[in-house]
């Protein structure tokens, strides 16, 4: 369970997140809102990259803000970035090994762990390919595979569907919906694709100008008049 209490982030005079309070119990929660609403700021607040001025984030009783950014990752906060972060001269396996190093996965377990996440992400064939030679879909899946290593408690996906084709989106849907069962991690997903959100998220939080304007089961929120006005422009 994720408890966000009165979370406030300020960049100078700009209030990017304004007293956000939210309790997430669903396996997959969507986070939507127009550009500049504070979605990426919220994922950055989880990771420790945003200047938090007030509030707390508590996951399974642990106050996240007490931990340095890399320790949050080791504790169980995984994330992907809007712009994929794949190193050109490392192979896919080396990317995953780097995460194993950081999270202290034992040597004799690594081959198994890496095999499992590669298989789940459907990119076992890319294991020894260099980052530079991957296509955008394979890069995206490598990022997701990185997120799955080391028993994560929560995975934040920042626009995982960006630039994917329809068949690739089907793989992504499968991966997102099966993650909780296979790896035990809750997912918070930022995306603009309403179809993807509708298919995989059981609840949605809607942000606008740093404030929470709606939160609840997916179907109800997408019917909400205030949400349509703010997000869909209707």
């Amino acid at each position, binding site marked *: 369970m994720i408890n966000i209490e009165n979370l406030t982030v300020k960049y100078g005079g700009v209030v990017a997140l304004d007293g956000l309070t939210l309790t997430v119990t669903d396996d997959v929660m969507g986070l939507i809102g127009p550009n500049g609403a504070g979605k990426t700021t919220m994922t950055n607040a989880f990771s420790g990259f945003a200047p938090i001025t007030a509030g707390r984030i508590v996951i399974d009783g642990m106050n996240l803000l007490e931990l340095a950014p890399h320790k949050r*990752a080791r504790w169980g906060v*995984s994330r992907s*970035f809007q712009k994929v972060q794949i190193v050109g001269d490392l192979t896919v396996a080396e990317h995953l090994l*780097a995460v194993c190093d*950081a999270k202290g996965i034992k040597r004799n377990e690594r081959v198994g762990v890496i095999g499992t996440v590669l298989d789940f992400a459907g990119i076992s064939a890319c294991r020894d390919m260099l980052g530079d030679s991957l296509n955008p879909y394979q890069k995206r899946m490598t990022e997701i595979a*990185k997120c799955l290593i080391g028993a994560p408690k929560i995975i934040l996906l920042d626009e995982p569907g960006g630039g994917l084709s329809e068949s690739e989106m089907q793989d992504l849907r499968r991966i997102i919906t099966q993650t909780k069962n296979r790896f035990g991690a809750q997912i918070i997903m930022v995306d603009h694709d309403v179809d993807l959100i509708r298919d995989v998220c059981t609840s949605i939080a809607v942000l606008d100008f740093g404030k929470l304007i709606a939160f609840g089961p997916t179907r109800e929120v997408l019917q909400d008049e205030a949400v349509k006005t703010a997000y869909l422009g209707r």
Partner: protein
Amino acid sequence: MPKTVLPPLVVLAICLFVLPLVLSALWVKVVTSAAIFALAAAGISVLFAQLGLINLAQIALVGVGGWIALRLNYATPLPVTLIIAIAGIATAAIGAVLALPALRMRGLYLALVTLMAAGAFQILFNAFQFPNGGEGFWGVARQSAADIRPPLMVQTDVGYLRYSIVIVALCFGLVALHRVTAPGRAWAMIRQSEANAMAAGVNVTFYKIWAFALSGLLAGVAGALLSGALGQLDPRSFLASEGILLFALAVVGGAYSWAGAVIAGILYKLLPALLNDFGVSADIALIVFGGALLHAIMTAPRGIAGQLIGALQRKPS
């Protein structure tokens, strides 16, 4: 045996068994220096290629390593190889201190900070000189330098050349080991972006400091070897401007492979000596280096080594 291990072993064998046979006494000394500065350049390359950080103070750290080695050689009966190890480790600690500004800065600003550090060491070396067998902590006497002990079983210049090359090769091996294990992978993640590294659980602070310490270790070992090769050190060898030159040559040689560091060492020590030998002013080398740097920046970001490797890997059509 992997393909990448063979070329360095061939070069090592040539350096150990062929060079000593064909070089005259003067050139043995020059090649020894070139090998030693190749090691210093390798330290610059670790920071530049692995983390994109510019360190212009490497030459100052070579001086620090040399100072420590001379000091210990005169003051203690320790074996010379142990002294070299101690000088390397102590310089690594000082290199790690240089990492502190690098935790907050990069690019031009970090380069400026390291240049300031190099300037500060230049002043210290000038003020206190290098130990030459005198009394007291600084160990400087107004006399010609006392002899220092050579390493065990090393009696001649050729022996010292072989000794230096073995140590340089071991240090290159240490760097190669870093690149294919956890530190190399962590550095790659940091190079991509620090946010990316932190989000994967990498301790960015620790691995940046580690990179500076490794770079400092190589500089310290190089300095200690240099003090043994020359018998005494001159503050004028460790000017801040030399630090800029060595950095430029590390880039020209190629920061992304061991061969680049070897080329940097050759350019730094061998080319000026060759020009002298031809009866041309060694200052011409500076002009050549300037041109080579422009060339590297504009057309060969992986340096001469990158171009050579590219040419060798290209299949004949």
